[in-house]
């Protein structure tokens, strides 16, 4: 943090901002406390990636966005994410404003909440308070996380009551239309006992040159026997420095499955942790990455097993080209007492250019005897024998490489439940690897 930023977004600013959003008093207090904590906390220390020279300070904290009256009026890059004829559950945040919201009545009648974080704070303040930065992410984890809590400026709240199974995906789009606007988005998803929900999110910006900052926290709480399927495509442009924390907490018999396309073009730290608290809980954490240009990225995926019979599997596939460099840390941790747990992980990095770098670090931390654990990691080039095989059928080298790369990234693409989002990710990958 530079002195300049500290002065600009200080206690006085936070009071004003919080009041202008009609926040409950507890939220205003939380912000002030977080700001004061941020001053004494250390910066995060991503393993093997130095971030000293990264720009976390250049941004504009609040930029309003116009309401979207008709989906037909959206620019192509945003419209492509949406099936306009069939988007019954859609939230679009434009800069820091809630610009569009639709929720199928079927769900609201059953008590499902799907709304922007500020409306949620006003209308469901107690509910938000129960979960906001409590069981998943803590405010004092590091300076940037405290700063997130102090300056949170957007996000969404999803709440699914007991026994309600939402069988249509809920879609969120974070559209950073302004080149300077910061994303301090907070995504809070709570699935009560025996409920189920599928959530899909796209973040998109266009600031190829202009510097700004995304400091995003996602918290997913799955109560007993709840099932949360989370899909996301992060697509911040090259100017955005990204610090993204995703955290899941799964209680007894609950599942949280993640499918994340990490398509940012700027420097990125992504920390993704799932706590399997309850017995028989489970999580699949799949992510794919394409790195290009000179971007530096650090991805940590961690599943921590506390419950017995908990099953976690991590899959990270990365494609690196140009001078892009990435560190992939995959961590399977089995705590003492989590007997009969199963932790597996697979990290594979495909290098497309001489100058690219990829570093895969599989880590298993096991404090219990009666468990199953395994890992596979590899960093390499496109297999010449695979190329030979495809080319021997008449497919050109370029097309053969394309097929292999898309196949390599398919585990996440195929898992996204909305066809338009899936197609869009395929296109983004296409654009990045070509």
């Amino acid at each position, binding site marked *: 943090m530079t002195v300049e930023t500290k002065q600009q977004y200080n206690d006085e600013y936070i009071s004003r901002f919080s009041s202008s959003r009609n926040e409950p008093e507890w939220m205003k207090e939380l912000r002030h406390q977080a700001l004061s904590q941020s001053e004494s906390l250390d910066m995060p220390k991503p393993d093997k990636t130095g971030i000293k020279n990264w720009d976390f300070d250049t941004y504009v904290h609040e930029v309003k966005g116009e309401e979207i009256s008709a989906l037909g009026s959206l620019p192509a890059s945003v419209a492509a994410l949406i099936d306009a004829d069939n988007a019954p559950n859609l939230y679009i945040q434009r800069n820091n404003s809630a610009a569009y919201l639709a929720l199928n009545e079927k769900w609201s009648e059953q008590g499902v909440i799907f709304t922007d974080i500020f409306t949620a704070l006003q209308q469901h303040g107690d509910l938000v308070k129960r979960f906001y930065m409590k069981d998943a992410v803590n405010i004092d984890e590091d300076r940037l996380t405290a700063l997130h809590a102090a300056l949170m400026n957007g996000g969404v709240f999803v709440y699914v009551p007991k026994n309600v199974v939402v069988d249509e995906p809920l879609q969120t789009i974070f559209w950073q239309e302004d080149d300077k606007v910061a994303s301090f988005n907070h995504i809070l998803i709570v699935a009560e006992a025996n409920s189920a929900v599928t959530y899909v999110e796209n973040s998109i910006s266009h600031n190829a040159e202009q510097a700004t900052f995304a400091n995003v926290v996602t918290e997913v709480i799955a109560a007993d026997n709840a099932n949360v399927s989370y899909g996301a495509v992060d697509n911040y442009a090259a100017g955005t420095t990204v610090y993204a924390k995703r955290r899941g907490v799964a209680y007894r018999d609950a599942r949280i499955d993640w499918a994340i396309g990490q398509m940012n073009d700027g420097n990125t730290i992504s920390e993704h942790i799932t706590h399997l608290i309850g017995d028989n809980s489970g999580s699949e954490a799949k992510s794919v990455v394409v790195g290009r240009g000179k971007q530096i990225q650090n991805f940590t995926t961690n599943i921590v097993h506390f419950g017995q019979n908990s099953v976690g599997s991590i899959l990270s596939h990365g494609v690196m080209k140009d001078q892009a460099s990435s560190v992939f840390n995959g961590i399977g941790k089995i705590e003492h007492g989590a007997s009969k747990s199963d932790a597996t992980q697979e990290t594979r990095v495909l290098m497309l250019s001489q100058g690219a770098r990829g570093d895969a670090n599989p880590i298993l931390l096991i404090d219990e005897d009666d468990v199953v654990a395994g890992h596979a990691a590899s960093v390499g080039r496109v297999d010449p024998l*695979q190329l030979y*095989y495809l080319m021997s*059928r008449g497919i050109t080298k370029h097309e*053969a490489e394309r*097929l292999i790369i898309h*196949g*390599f990234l398919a585990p996440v693409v195929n898992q996204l439940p909305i066809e338009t989002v899936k197609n869009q990710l395929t296109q983004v990958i296409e654009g990045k690897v070509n």
Partner: protein
Amino acid sequence: MAGSVLEIKDLHVSIEDKEILKGVNLTIKSGEFHAVMGPNGTGKSTLASAIMGHPKYEVTSGSITLDGEDVLEMEVDERARAGLFLAMQYPSEISGVTNSDFLRSSINARRAEGDEIPLMKFIKEMDEAMDFLEMDKNMAQRYLNEGFSGGEKKRNEILQLLMMKAEIGILDEIDSGLDIDALKVVAKGINKLRDENFGCLIITHYQRLLNYIEPDFVHVMMQGRVVKSGGSELSKRLEAEGYDWIKQELNIQDETINA
């Protein structure tokens, strides 16, 4: 195009500076089925790989032409588009690419842009070919060769051969690891292609396959060369008597390429 000719002249091939083929001569014309036989380690599979352009094999001298065109000057994909097809002994597994997408890309690679095979026609042809080869329909949507058994991989190679309509097919030990029922199915697939527009080079070290596919010509390889050629009676004699009589006739002690 009727009447393709694949002509191999005095072919020398090395792998990592070790010479494996030491002057192979062979001509395959449309309508002809050739079998190349021989004990292990005599260079048979190297011949198949060199024709297709496997990255590990280096042609040091000699020529391969297809209808007069220099095959050795072509990239692997160009060889395929020119009409060569190699059914591989160890096909690669490619995750995330479905068998059906791969097949369609392969077929379209041989067609002009704008003349791609219509999807419905493709599906119909694939269904028919899979039925003919007694393949599980699920295999169309599985990832290419991933988790396929040995027999499934071989059938999948023949499925591609059936659908791609190559001029010259080369089968590299397509019979290895197959039980008798699978072998019959594979042979049925190959026999279906027998017509005046299709030539075939069948590489095997068992006579067994040739009980189901009658070759017009049989060649025996030893020490990286074709040492004897004949008709289908030659393979029958090999089955009955083994290779020793040829070694004696030609005064060969060690038939492998190490000799």
